[in-house]
């Protein structure tokens, strides 16, 4: 078939479409939903007993804000990258917050080394972290992928990775409000590990969601 004939066929049965909301609005919509879901989960679990104490420590506050910021910016970047004409540089948007967050955790590990003694003594299991981040993060990521499914035909992978990261970071931030983990290495291991798992799962399993037939 010649391209001119294809154009004829595409235009012949043209139906009006509802214009999609702007990427910023889409990101805002999802962030609102995520804040509601994670907020309810935090309230259901009850805030951690030492929260007030920790919120007086600048490094703790900075760390928490960096995790929220990483989640918010990753969601914005995912929504932007889902549009074909937006620059790939949006990928870099959450990177500084992410570096700040994990850099602070790494620094915390060193501080704990001096405070609590050898690493081996600080490491334990915290399946609850993994469970919460996955149980909360998978549906949130799925909603974001569905919202950004127009990325499928053009730029699926960065959107899947950033969408997974956004969910994981916000769940981790929520988790920090009610779950007590003292040693930074535990946070790094269990939060970071769960986030990595969620991002990988999103990249591997999210494809069918963004590759669905467009509405």
């Amino acid at each position: 078939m010649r391209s001119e004939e294809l154009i004829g066929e595409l235009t012949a049965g043209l139906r009006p479409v509802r214009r999609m909301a702007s990427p910023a609005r889409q990101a805002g919509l999802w962030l609102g939903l995520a804040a509601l879901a994670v907020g309810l989960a935090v309230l259901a679990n009850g805030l951690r007993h030492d929260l007030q104490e920790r919120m007086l420590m600048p490094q703790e506050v900075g760390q928490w804000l960096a995790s929220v910021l990483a989640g918010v910016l990753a969601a914005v970047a995912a929504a932007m990258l889902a549009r074909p004409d937006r620059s790939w540089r949006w990928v870099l948007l959450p990177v500084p917050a992410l570096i700040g967050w994990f850099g602070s955790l790494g620094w915390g590990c060193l501080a704990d080394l001096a405070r609590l003694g050898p690493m081996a003594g600080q490491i334990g299991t915290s399946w609850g972290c993994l469970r919460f981040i996955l149980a909360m993060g998978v549906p949130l990521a799925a909603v974001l992928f569905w919202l950004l499914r127009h990325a499928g035909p053009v730029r699926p992978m960065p959107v899947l990775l950033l969408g997974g990261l956004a969910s994981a970071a916000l769940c981790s931030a929520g988790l920090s409000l009610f779950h007590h983990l003292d040693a930074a290495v535990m946070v790094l291991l269990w939060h970071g590990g769960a986030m990595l798992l969620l991002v990988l799962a999103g990249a591997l399993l999210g494809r069918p969601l963004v590759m669905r037939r467009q509405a």
Partner: protein
Amino acid sequence: MSRTEGEWEAWMAAAQAGDAAAYDRLLRAALPLLRAVARRRIVNPAEAEDAVQDALLTIHTLRHSYEPARPIRPWMVAICERRAIDRLRRQGRRGGRETPIDDFGETLAAPGANKGEERVAAAELRAAVAELSEPQRTALRLAKLEDLPLTEASARSGMSVGALKVATHRAMKVLRRRLGVEE
């Protein structure tokens, strides 16, 4: 923003609202741009045209995601680039089994290698000339190759004008017969 660009954006906005005529105008106007994008990446013209059609289908599928406040060309170009790259990847996976031959009128890179026929013809001519008698060869060289007037050819060769004429004529006859040219 040039007038034409604003026009395309307006057409797409109208197409989103269901205006088929505006959509038709837009896609036809964009076709050369899409073809240029595809051909920049894909050498094979048929494959490039397939990529253009893939791009048209994707543009159609994603038309609701276009934001009319933004220029439409980068949007279309990005979609077309993506479809062209997809085509190339598929082509790459298929690559071991197919070789397009359209672009290989010349089969080998060495400059002399594609001149086989000319070289065979030249060899035949040399062999034919070798069969001529010495006076015939001389007459042919002076009268036909160097294109001298008969009087000068006669002075140089020491042959009479009559002898030169006869020798040239006979030489041509021998060559024609030898190379299979009808009298």
